[in-house]
């Protein structure tokens, strides 16, 4: 009997501990994810809700969306600005699934309000007003970037603070007008305007991925910076060949020169020298193949090939072609991690949620995501990126008085070059006071990356001016 009791105590304790664990897990997930579950478009309680939606404001408190006295939802009166913020703020019909209006609908409607709120409304017999959401985006900056975007092109610009992880702008073009949804006028727009390309656009990175290849090389072998490579403009290897952009032959050059002139041959060789496993390990450290769960929004997962069937796949992966895919937000995070001494910050969008009484319910905070690089490797890569803007392929991104670092790219999106390449720029302001990282992609923007570099310079300049 004594032994029986001992065993029963053991098993009983186990069951009770499991039970407490279950309760704790349940409480934790509901507390952290409950409002996301409740914001699901399939939640009929949202449609049935009688509450008035709370306000959406930008980082400076400027109203982006508000509910008028008569219950109608009002967005910015300036049409261009309203459209620039369309996918970020969202719309009442839920056309842009990633917008705050949809993704935070349960919060904006506050369908399960607190007891005190309910009591006070009962006595005042007022209609329930939901919580207001303040986002980290700067409305003026986002409107400016959209206006500065080359006319007639599609693409995305993502600006973030690499020291805190705050997202300052998420421009995605084409955009739509949240006030003009009655006719569903944007349903027929090719590559839907409802899509937020910063979060949901999976693009081939092309040469901007050389940042990751470089990071892998310097992390695995410090001696690689002194290695001399030879570029004859093309490299024929077993199973394929690779050429440099514009047929340029760079001759003998070191890693720094190869990076700032974006030499494909050198980086193809570098990828081969590293091997798939090491290159993939670095890419995954940077967040490729990872199921991102940032909480404030949904971002698609970037991809790096898990295996390649030939040397060809490896060489092309090294210069960001083939099966490598990335979102503009993730690219800004990668550039930001280089600027931030190798620490990638968790991106966030929700600055503050306040209930109808104005009491803060939640407040966003800076949170490191991962140390992706050693500080020394990060500063080395930042130096290379600085050279690239100073005297390499990205000179147009320079801003007077600030050290801008960056990397350009032109990503092939078709096998036979029938489609114009996507033009990329990613980089950052290397400045304690203005820690802004950026990723710009212009679909079909062509080789040379002139347009994205110029746009990045304008956008970062305005970010310094507006955000401070």
């Amino acid at each position, binding site marked *: *009997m004594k*032994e*029986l*009791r*001992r*065993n*029963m*105590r053991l*098993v*009983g304790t186990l*069951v*009770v501990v*499991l*039970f*407490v664990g*279950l*309760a704790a*897990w*349940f*409480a934790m*997930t*509901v*507390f952290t*994810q*409950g*409002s*996301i*579950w*409740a*914001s*699901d478009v*399939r*939640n*009929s*309680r949202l449609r*049935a809700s009688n509450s008035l939606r709370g306000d959406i404001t930008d980082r400076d408190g400027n109203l982006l969306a508000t509910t008028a006295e008569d219950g109608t939802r009002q967005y910015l009166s300036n049409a261009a600005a309203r459209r620039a913020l369309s996918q970020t703020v969202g719309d009442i019909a839920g056309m842009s699934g990633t917008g705050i209006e949809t993704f935070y609908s*349960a919060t904006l409607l506050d*369908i*399960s*309000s*607190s*007891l005190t709120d*309910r009591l006070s409304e009962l006595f005042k017999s007022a209609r329930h007003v939901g919580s207001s959401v303040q986002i980290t985006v700067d409305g003026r900056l986002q409107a400016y970037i959209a206006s500065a975007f080359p006319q007639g092109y599609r693409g995305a610009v993502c600006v973030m603070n690499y020291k805190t992880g705050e997202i300052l702008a998420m421009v995605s073009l084409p955009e739509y007008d949240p006030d003009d949804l009655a006719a569903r006028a944007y349903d027929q727009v090719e590559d839907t305007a409802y899509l937020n390309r910063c979060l949901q656009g999976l693009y081939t990175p092309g040469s901007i991925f050389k940042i990751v290849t470089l990071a892998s090389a310097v992390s695995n072998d410090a001696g690689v910076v002194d290695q001399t490579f030879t570029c004859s403009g093309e490299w024929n290897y077993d199973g394929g060949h690779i050429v440099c952009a514009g047929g340029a032959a760079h001759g003998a050059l070191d890693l720094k020169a190869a990076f700032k002139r974006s030499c494909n041959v050198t980086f193809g060789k570098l990828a081969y020298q590293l091997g798939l496993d090491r290159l993939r390990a670095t890419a995954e450290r940077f967040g490729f193949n990872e199921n991102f769960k940032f909480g404030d929004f949904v971002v698609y997962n970037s991809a790096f090939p898990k295996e390649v069937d030939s040397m060809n796949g490896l060489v092309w992966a090294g210069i960001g072609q083939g099966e490598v895919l990335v979102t503009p937000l993730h690219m800004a995070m990668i550039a930001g991690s280089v600027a931030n001494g190798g620490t990638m910050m968790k991106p966030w969008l929700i600055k503050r949620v306040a209930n109808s009484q104005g009491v803060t319910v939640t407040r966003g905070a800076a949170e490191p995501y991962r140390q992706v690089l050693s500080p020394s490797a990060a500063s080395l890569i930042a130096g290379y990126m600085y050279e690239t803007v100073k005297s390499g392929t990205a000179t147009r991104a320079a801003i007077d008085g600030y050290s801008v670092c960056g990397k350009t790219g032109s990503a092939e999106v078709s096998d036979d070059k029938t489609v114009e390449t996507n033009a990329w720029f990613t980089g950052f302001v290397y400045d304690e006071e203005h820690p802004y990282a950026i990723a710009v992609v212009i679909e079909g923007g062509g080789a040379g990356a002139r347009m994205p570099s110029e746009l990045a310079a304008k956008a970062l300049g305005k970010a310094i001016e507006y955000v401070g």
Partner: protein
Amino acid sequence: MTPDKVEKMKKALMRSNTHLLLSAVTLFQAAAMLLIAFQKEAVNPQALILAAALPLVTWLVTALMGRVWPVDRAILILVMLLCSVGLITLSDIARSDVTPRTQAYYALAGVAAMFAGAAFIRRWRQWKKYTPLLMALCLIALLSPYLPKVGIYKYGARNWVGLPGGPSIQPSEFMKPVMILCLASGFSNRPRFARCLPTIGFAALCCGVLLSEKDLGAVLLYFLTTVLMYYAATSNAFITLSGLGMGAAAAVIAYRALPYVQARVAIWQNPWIDPQDSGFQLIQSLIAIGSGGLFGMGLGMGMPRDIPLYHSDFIFASITEEFGLIFAVGLLAVYVMIIMRGLIVAFNARTSFHSLAAFGLVIMLGLQTMLIVGGNTKLLPLSGVTLPLVCYGGSSLVSTFFSMGLLLGISSMNAEDEARDIETLELREDVP
């Protein structure tokens, strides 16, 4: 010490101070039911009756059972509380008044079954002799859904019997306490492995029959309860671990071989892949839970009917939506309290049979609750077991009440034994 004093002491020992608990529970029952009765323009007469009946029955049952036998009143009151949470939720969310009314009748039958269970376990002395008979009964009952005409195939499992048009019952629910009694008897008195074999074989047969009926949740419950009871009875870690290993292997084989198991696991891993069809249930459950927030939408304010099976498999999600996260966690705490009180009953029992029986009943209750709560909240794949005492359904409710009756019966025997001990001790001290 005079015999009068001894008698007084016995009484005091038997009656733990549960007045406060009883008052709180009856107050909750009355308040919640009144709220439901008056929340619409027209008064809901059924809820009004229940607002009076629930506290009254709870009080009566506690007083009556407590007078007849010195049972653990805390367990009794908490059991009544869980049952009334079920009735309140059903009165609140069900489409028609029939569902809560039926459940109320089931609950009355359950209370009767609880008395029967307590009376039965107190009288039953020759368990060894009757165990083979019980085992046979259990197996036949589990096989009965295969009988022509009365067997019913429902919700993807063949685990119901009933006459067409008449009431139907679920034998796998009713056999839970029977099975535990068989196991407790077979594993009592610290047997060697060889002597356990018939009992283990019986349990394996039960699991096999249930598996063939696709009643996966029941298989899991029966299996885990058997393994844990075996371990408690024999301390044989090797056999226990091998048993668990075999169970895990069987689970892997089942996963490979049975498409509906794969489907369940796939939905659990990511319900959003198929939000309109197979994942619909779980997504709606999560939406309801998330909508409830900390304090819930409020009784009658939510829309839990969006969840398929909102009143049975997903009643926990419905409760969380209506009452909120804090209440739901409190509900789990009530289960934990019953489990802990039940374990104390098992510790104090005088024979290994009673000890094991109490232990098995409590463990099964705990495992069952964890399985369904985990299933509702996407921690575990959904396995279609009931939330004990709360969820809609007669078989499960009556059977669980009967199990709790057995547990209470054992607790009353413990209290009497303890009182008797004190009596003998005191008498000895009286001898100069």
